[in-house]
């Protein structure tokens, strides 16, 4: 989907926020994959590379700070722009936000079930079901949880955009 400049200026404020936020969260996901896994260029980034606890803590803090800064800047900038354009948010925006929250809820529910099944089945049969995805170590647990959290934000923003754009 491509938009002209005039087209993007006609977007709802919440949709404009969702586009920029989606870009930011995809960036954070890439950062996570590069730091804790082999990276998107290899094995789809799902082969976990074991890290020291101190390094894991550093990565976690970096991701948290990046997310806070990105969300604050994007929310602030889109709100400032909307302040010049009348009503910022209305009932349709709230309804779409609710639908997007439901989509991210289902993502989290499914992802957690997949992780639990993977861990239990791997323990039962002795080796990880998905090669390289050993989420029983500290690095693996941190990766799995952060992947689900960041993934849920991406799903939420994508669902927001889909609901604004669907025919």
């Amino acid at each position, binding site marked *: 989907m491509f938009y002209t400049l005039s087209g993007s200026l*006609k977007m*709802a*404020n919440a*949709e404009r926020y969702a586009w920029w936020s989606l870009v930011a969260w995809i960036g954070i996901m890439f950062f996570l994959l590069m730091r804790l896994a082999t990276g998107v260029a290899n094995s789809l980034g799902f082969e976990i590379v074991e890290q020291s606890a101190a390094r894991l803590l550093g990565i976690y803090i970096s991701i948290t700070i990046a997310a806070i800064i990105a969300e604050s800047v994007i929310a602030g900038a889109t709100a400032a722009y909307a302040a010049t354009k*009348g*009503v910022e948010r*209305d*009932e*349709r925006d709230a309804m779409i936000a609710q639908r997007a929250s439901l989509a991210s809820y289902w993502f989290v529910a499914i992802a957690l079930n997949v992780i639990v099944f993977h861990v239990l089945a791997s323990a039962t049969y002795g080796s990880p079901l998905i090669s390289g995805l050993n989420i029983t170590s500290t690095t693996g647990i941190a990766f799995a949880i952060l992947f689900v959290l960041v993934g849920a934000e991406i799903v939420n923003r994508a669902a927001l955009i889909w609901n604004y754009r669907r*025919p």
Partner: protein
Amino acid sequence: MTPRKGKVGNRIRDLRTERSWSQGELAERVGATRQTINAIEQEKYAPTLELAFRIALAFEVGFEDVWTFR
């Protein structure tokens, strides 16, 4: 008895054109965004009862002069 399925329609574009109001102007009068008014006009979004009444009040017409169910 199963209620019949239908679609909420409206005459917002006609009423707006008669008054030479832009979508933004109507949006401001009813406290919605211009994008929401556009979605309602294109029948992509059915507003809540409250917004539907506010739109009818803004045009100073009856509810049924704006909204249809077919």
